């Protein structure tokens, strides 16, 4: 395979040149060659095998192997099959898919063509959050270009393969990012997650076999087809192939998206790439995978940022939204913001999530405002434990995990608030970096 010898960036290599967002610029960089190769030289099963070899793990949060997911689609089903691209990107701390769509929309389209071909889908929907209208406009433009050039529509690239791609605009609901909530939403309903099984691969959109993948997952597919699955796998760590788009935000000098080999140490991402903690302050804590992920203390960040290593460290890579907190951060207040989010976004179908998430919010607010008694932290842990694993979708866990980790790892701050009705960080520094 014609593998580039030294690779510094894959998706992000398209971001340096604004022209790469247009079809002409994309074609000048070898665009749509991978789709041509897949459609003219490979059988769908070969594409799936190549992606399996690549160890491409889903970038939407759960890290499920993409090739394996595709192989669950029943090939002989007489029903139409669908590809759904999850561009809802609503996990707090996550903003990478936005760049893929704004700066390399054709990469997403080409990846979608290859993926749809692999699962024998002739219609794909890109579900994009309503707040990303700038991305939607860019994507619609790119789709028009792709149709005109014969990369979409009937008989793509002179083959017998047809594919239509439609953009579907969301309207503001975090839960619509959960894959079955998303399907309900696409069907024109409230985004209530479905009980699984059945999984979407067999009963998905309009009750037909469906593959749902995150934008970034799909955007890596053309590279795998171009250079081979083994090459992609070799870029990352064991079972975590390729590169990864890491989003760094919070108290760092250079917030932004950094594309690095899967498994780059969390500390390196923060210190070397994002420029370290701002204002010369010390690091206090890091949430490594979007606000749903358990928080890590400063002494816990020497860990490879991949799905397995972070899971072993008691957290998760999730959406790779790395949220950095400096020493002047009030952790009670930070948890209040997170708890507010999950209480706000619970869809209300499951009692533990619907009732538990607002209780947790109220309790952390009581602590913050000096209305709590010393039993609260333990009670919060108990409530969180009782949500875990008892709900239809993972939003319940997402509401519980931050509480468990914040309270366990920063317990003295919670206790101080309760006992003294004041913030101990504020006392020590004169102010906090996350004021009300």
């Amino acid at each position, binding site marked *: 395979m014609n593998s580039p010898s030294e690779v510094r960036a894959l998706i992000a290599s398209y971001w340096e040149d604004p022209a790469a967002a247009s079809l002409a610029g994309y074609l000048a960089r070898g665009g749509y060659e991978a789709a041509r190769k897949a459609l003219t030289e490979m059988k769908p099963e070969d594409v799936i095998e190549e992606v399996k070899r690549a160890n491409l793990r889903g970038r939407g949060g759960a890290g499920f192997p993409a090739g394996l997911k595709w192989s669950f689609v029943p090939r002989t089903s007489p029903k139409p099959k669908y590809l759904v691209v999850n561009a809802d990107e609503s996990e707090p701390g996550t903003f990478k898919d936005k760049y893929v769509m704004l700066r390399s929309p054709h990469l997403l389209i080409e990846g979608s063509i290859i993926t749809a071909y692999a699962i024998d889908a002739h219609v794909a929907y890109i579900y994009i959050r309503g707040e990303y209208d700038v991305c939607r406009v860019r994507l619609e433009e790119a789709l028009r270009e792709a149709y005109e050039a014969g990369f979409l529509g009937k008989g793509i690239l002179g083959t017998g393969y047809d594919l239509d791609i439609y953009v579907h605009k969301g309207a503001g609901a975090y839960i619509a990012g959960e894959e079955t909530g998303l399907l309900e939403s696409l069907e024109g309903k409230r985004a209530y997650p479905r009980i699984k099984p059945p999984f979407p691969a067999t009963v998905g959109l309009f009750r037909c076999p469906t593959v749902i993948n995150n934008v970034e997952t799909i955007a890596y597919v053309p590279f795998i087809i171009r250079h081979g699955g083994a090459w992609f796998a070799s870029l990352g760590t064991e079972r975590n192939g390729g590169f990864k788009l890491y989003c760094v935000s919070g108290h760092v000098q250079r917030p932004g998206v950094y594309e690095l080999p899967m498994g780059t140490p969390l500390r390196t991402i923060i210190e070397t790439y994002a420029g370290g903690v701002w204002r010369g302050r010390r690091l206090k804590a890091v949430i490594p995978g979007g606000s749903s992920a358990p928080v890590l203390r400063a002494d816990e960040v020497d860990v490879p940022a991949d799905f397995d290593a972070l899971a072993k460290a008691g957290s998760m890579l999730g959406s790779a939204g790395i949220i950095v907190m400096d020493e002047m951060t009030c952790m009670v207040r930070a948890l209040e913001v997170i708890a507010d989010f999950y209480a706000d976004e619970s869809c209300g179908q499951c009692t533990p999530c619907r009732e538990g998430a607002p209780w947790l919010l109220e309790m952390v607010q009581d602590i913050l405002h000096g209305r709590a008694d010393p039993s609260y932290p333990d009670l919060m842990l108990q409530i969180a434990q009782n949500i875990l694993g008892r709900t239809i979708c993972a939003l319940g866990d997402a509401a519980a995990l931050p509480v468990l980790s914040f309270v366990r790892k920063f317990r003295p701050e919670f206790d101080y608030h309760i006992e003294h009705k004041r913030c101990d960080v504020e006392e020590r520094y004169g102010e906090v970096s996350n004021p*009300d």
Partner: protein
Amino acid sequence: MSSHVEPAYRYLTPEVCARIEALRSRYPDRRALLMPALWAIQEAHGWVPLEAQTELAAYLGVPPVWVHEVVSFYNMYHERPVGRYLIYVCGNIACSLRGARRLLRYLLDRLGVAERAVTPDGLFTVERVQCIGACERAPVIQVNGEFIGPVDEAQLDDLIATLRAKAREVTP
């Protein structure tokens, strides 16, 4: 083809209907047209009044509750009118770490308005929202869909002044 005889619609104008019809072939099920149709209505009228929801239900031939349950579930459909400039202020984690909550209060004070209300001149509505996917620009706001950030108090002052001036230009 939809061949029902329509009463005169107030919100489902011919333009809105044309937009809906252009999307029909994309979905195997007319219920899936609801979200795009609601967007078409909101883009034409600025919000989605109950009357518009009822019209849409009749137009698509679906129970009105199907429309209403969607409108009431998703935050971005407005069941009440909003100002000409809808300002989303993100109050989520990355933004609040950089002072967003204080900025939100500042902006509301400056405009003398409650969250989600419309200023008396009809120009502004401010809404605290959850993460809008621009945490690298924290604290970030969105004005009619455009991301602006990082912002501070002085920039918010400038922004309000600029938008007020712009509004004077376009309204004779």
